């Protein structure tokens, strides 16, 4: 890992993506009494994804709060508590349910600081799951990362490794701006090494080069980083050297690292699990077209879900969703091997 934020003296610890998130929450709650967690089934049940298991035992029901099924109230009360000095972490069980709280997010949370002439600090972290866990159909499978990219005022964070999950979540909790923090359901069990340091944080706006390469860049979001690495390994067998870049935060977007990579490779694929139309890749591709066109030897190729609601049937779902083979196909298209 070429992460300049990792202090060489600090031990690394193997942990799952889910444990990494839990650790960041637990460490921040120990450190700062203003940090608390609330959401549906986060307490007794430990979160439907198990992320907050046993946190109730350590922190009690005041700080690990089970809420009613009330997404508007969950996000809205998070905002109110943040405005008066708390640092709430609120959990929305599925990204699909963000729209239930859509007004609070788009019209209240994101705009509170600006509309108040900068009076409001909004240290609110909205943790939310993203992606298709398999045959969960159209209302439990979406990847809504870009839904709120069009709303200025909220930061959008997309970790792809346990270390980044831990470090980015810490930055979110300690920051003064609201954050939508997207956790890919299908990464929760994945393991990786993260610094065993209660102050380890990954700053926003710094992309990570997940694999260095010469011939083509894949800019991959969330779970697609994993698929892009698999695709890169496959293309290495054909002597095609693929660079994989993980933006880590979509808002703010580290343009420089993305452009530098494209300047080196002169070819680029942008991959995400979200639907293609107006997905995160639309913004990234437009940015590259504006600021990096002179480096490019071919079109900017996007990989994403087909513009169809997620189907229940596994074969249909596979057809709609992108995976490593779609990235391989996109990469090979540069050499006419599609």
């Amino acid at each position, binding site marked *: 890992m070429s992460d300049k934020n990792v202090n060489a003296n600090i031990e690394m610890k193997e942990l799952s993506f889910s444990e990494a998130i839990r650790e960041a929450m637990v460490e921040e709650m120990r450190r700062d009494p203003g940090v608390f967690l609330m959401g549906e089934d986060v307490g007794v049940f430990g979160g439907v994804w198990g992320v907050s298991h046993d946190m109730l035992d350590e922190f009690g029901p005041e700080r690990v709060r089970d809420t009613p099924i009330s997404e508007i109230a969950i996000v809205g009360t998070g905002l109110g508590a943040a405005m008066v000095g708390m640092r709430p972490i609120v959990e929305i069980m599925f990204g699909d349910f963000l729209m239930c709280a859509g007004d609070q997010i788009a019209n209240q949370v994101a705009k509170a600081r600006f509309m108040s002439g900068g009076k409001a600090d909004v240290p609110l972290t909205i943790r939310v799951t993203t992606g298709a866990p398999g045959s969960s159909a159209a209302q439990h499978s979406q990847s809504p990362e870009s839904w709120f990219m069009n709303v200025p005022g909220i930061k959008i964070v997309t970790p792809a490794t346990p270390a980044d999950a831990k470090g980015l979540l810490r930055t979110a909790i300690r920051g003064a701006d609201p954050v939508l923090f997207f956790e890919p359901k299908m990464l929760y069990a994945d393991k990786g090494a993260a610094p065993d340091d209660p102050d380890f944080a990954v700053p926003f706006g710094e992309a990570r080069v997940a694999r260095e390469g010469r011939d083509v860049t894949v800019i991959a979001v969330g779970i697609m980083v994993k698929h892009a690495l698999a695709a890169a390994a496959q293309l290495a067998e054909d002597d095609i050297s693929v660079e994989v870049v993980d933006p880590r935060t979509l808002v703010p977007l580290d343009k420089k690292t993305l452009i530098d990579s494209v300047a080196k490779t002169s070819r680029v694929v942008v991959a995400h699990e979200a639907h293609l139309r107006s997905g995160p890749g639309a913004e990234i591709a437009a940015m590259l077209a504006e600021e990096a066109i002179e480096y490019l030897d071919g079109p900017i190729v996007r990989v994403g879900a087909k513009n169809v609601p997620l189907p229940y049937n596994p074969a249909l779902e596979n057809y*709609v969703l992108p995976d490593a083979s779609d990235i391989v196909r996109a990469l090979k298209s540069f050499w006419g091997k599609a």
Partner: protein
Amino acid sequence: MSDKELTSYSKDFLAELFRKMVLVREFELRAIEERRNGLIPGFIHSCVGQEASAVGATAALTQEDVITSTHRGHGHLLGKGGDPKYMMAELAARSTGYCLGRGGSLHLADFELGILGANGIVGGGIPIAVGAGLAFQMRGEKRVSLSFFGDGATNEGAFHEALNLAGLWSLPVIFLCENNLYGEGTPQDQQAPIADLAKRAESYGFPGEIVDGNDVLAVYEATKAAAARARAGEGPTMIEAKTYRFRGHYEGDPQIYRKPGEMAEWRKRDPIPNFRQRLLDAGLFDAEALDEIEADVQADLDEAVAFAESAPAPKPEEALAGVYAETHDGLIF
């Protein structure tokens, strides 16, 4: 127990209530089994234990009336006349299923039967039911719209906005809350400061009634009265059916949240054996007649599973069909 004499109902009607409740329970158990066998790829939220509210409420509706349902909706569908064959095929993700395999358990629907859809969004169906009621009122139709939802859903904004509007416009809607004491892993008493959710209706200007949700006839009578009110232009009613789910929120749920002894108490109130015993005690049926009904249900379910198994899997490209009415030569994708 509803206080009306059993003998005031026709035998056929009582037999049908019994058959439907058995069908709902056995459908659920079969679906759970077929999920284990790999026929069904997705999650199932079963309504085992809650058959009486689903069957009693739908029995009070006509074919022209409509319902909206929930993630725990198989009973609602079967009550409203849903065909177990097409339901099982949908759960098995086949193109012969109710939603061509695209929806699964969470999105089962049959508009011809007035089933406007299960829902993956808690509370999502409640405003939809109000909209159907609005249309019936505007067109002067004597139809009724009934929305099923759980106790947890009454804490969603959608619930409150929908009830207020229905009360304000005096719409022909029945709000049928199945209070099974839990929303996922969180007990109802941790989700709302009141235990009797029917009280919420009062603040929207219409009656809210509590019934024993495990007594199929009690639910039927309450729904029948509410439907009569709605058809007479007297506006909405909320019915809170107190009930209990016997299985996990979803299959595989560790159920760590149950209160000690609670399950055993509710098992005594299992709606199906209790109704069966009542039918026997009243001397209306002998055991063989009821056994035969149960056997018929099993045969129907064997057929449903066979239908699902033999159905062709949809072709992947079929995913593109049915997103829009008009695709502008595919340009829309």
